[in-house]
């Protein structure tokens, strides 16, 4: 009853195609690890799952565009970034909705670089809203392009272009 792309689409992480959470599952369910990182005892949370099917979740806030308009108009800085090889939430949608807000373009579509290489493209809008793509990155950008991700992350936090 409506299209809400989520990751992963299936509730049980064991059934998510094309992914593997074995390292995380084995590490976080190890008793010594759980003790070291101060988790509650197993009688309360029996095991860690990457994605749980324990909760029943209602998407009750509607479209996020009105939130972005409100926040950016109040002066909060926003970076909307997209790995451009993701088809779960593809960049075409993020590119479309950031454009749809209608803010003046202050930094016309151009490549951005990391380590001297083109790492993607960016378009800057008025009110500190920036849309940025990361070439060749999938849904979880820093997993696929860690160096480039740290670069844009550092620049954004520092207020650099």
């Amino acid at each position, binding site marked *: 009853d409506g299209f809400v792309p*989520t990751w992963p689409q299936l509730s049980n992480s064991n059934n998510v195609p094309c992914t593997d959470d074995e390292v995380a599952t084995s590490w976080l369910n190890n008793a010594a690890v759980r003790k*070291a*990182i101060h*988790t509650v005892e197993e009688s309360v949370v029996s095991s860690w799952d990457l994605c749980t*099917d324990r*909760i029943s*979740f209602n998407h*009750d806030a509607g479209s996020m565009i009105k939130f972005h308009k409100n926040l950016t108009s109040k002066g909060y800085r926003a970076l909307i970034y997209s790995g451009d090889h993701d088809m779960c939430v593809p960049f075409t949608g993020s590119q479309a909705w950031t454009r749809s807000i209608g803010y003046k373009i202050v930094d016309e579509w151009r490549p951005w670089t990391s380590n001297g290489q083109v790492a993607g493209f960016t378009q800057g809008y008025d009110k500190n809203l920036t849309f940025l793509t990361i070439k060749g990155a999938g*849904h979880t950008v820093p997993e696929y392009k860690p160096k480039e991700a740290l670069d844009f*992350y550092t620049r954004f936090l520092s207020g650099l272009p």
Partner: protein
Amino acid sequence: APQNSLVTQVPGFNGSLPSNHYAGYVTVDENHGRNLYYYFVASEGKPSEDPVVLWLNGGPGCSSFDGFIYEHGPFNFEAAKTKGGLPTLHLNPHSWSKVSNVLYLDSPAGVGFSYSKNDTDYITGDIKTASDTHAFLLKWFNLYPEFLPNPFFIAGESYAGVYVPTLAYEVMKGRIDAGARPILNFQGYMVGNGVTDEQIDGNALVPFAHGMGLISDNLFEAIDGLNIYDILEPCYHGIEAEGFTASSYIRLPSSFRKLGETEKPLAVRKRMFGRAWPLRAPVR
């Protein structure tokens, strides 16, 4: 910082941690016993000055340890060589803790290591999640007041495209209208491959598949007017449906009467799903 939350050693990692790590729970609802789990990685740079960034993975229902382990946490994980063994951890040269203090949060209750003593809390939604996470932040900064002056950012990906702006709005609202304390030095937010708007996100898929060469030009053109109730049948547009666009199909329920129509004069639905269909009778 509460010293009993300090992580003194991390199994699988040999060596000294490059910065302080803290982990534990914050109770966001005393009556229900709703507790959210966090793992905080102090900056390897200047923790007293560098930004504090809250990181949220999406789902909904996915643990933010996905970000910690697979994306931008302080370690790279190498799978164990023997069955049942522990992964080996190496320092991640591209950890986001190189330049910021990163707060990984399992949210809402029921996700990852977060829990509630009341099972009804596991029925939740965007608004309750944002409210709980805001309550978490206020309490967390009370526990770690030395980080209050630092610039504060909210970040996340995927379904956190909903979590991030709804939480940011709560923080802004609490600061301006409700006088929430402590006052967070909130500066901005980041969303990666985030869910935003059902219609725009949904309509982005086909142009993406076409642009990436996954489907042909011919198929891309043919997909206009796709009959989603029988993809191999053409889309029937009755005389009264002139001006009715393909994208309108997802705007239920006003277009509900169009379900199952083909170029044939009878709606497929009426022939297929009559309620009087005899049990085990052959399909007509």
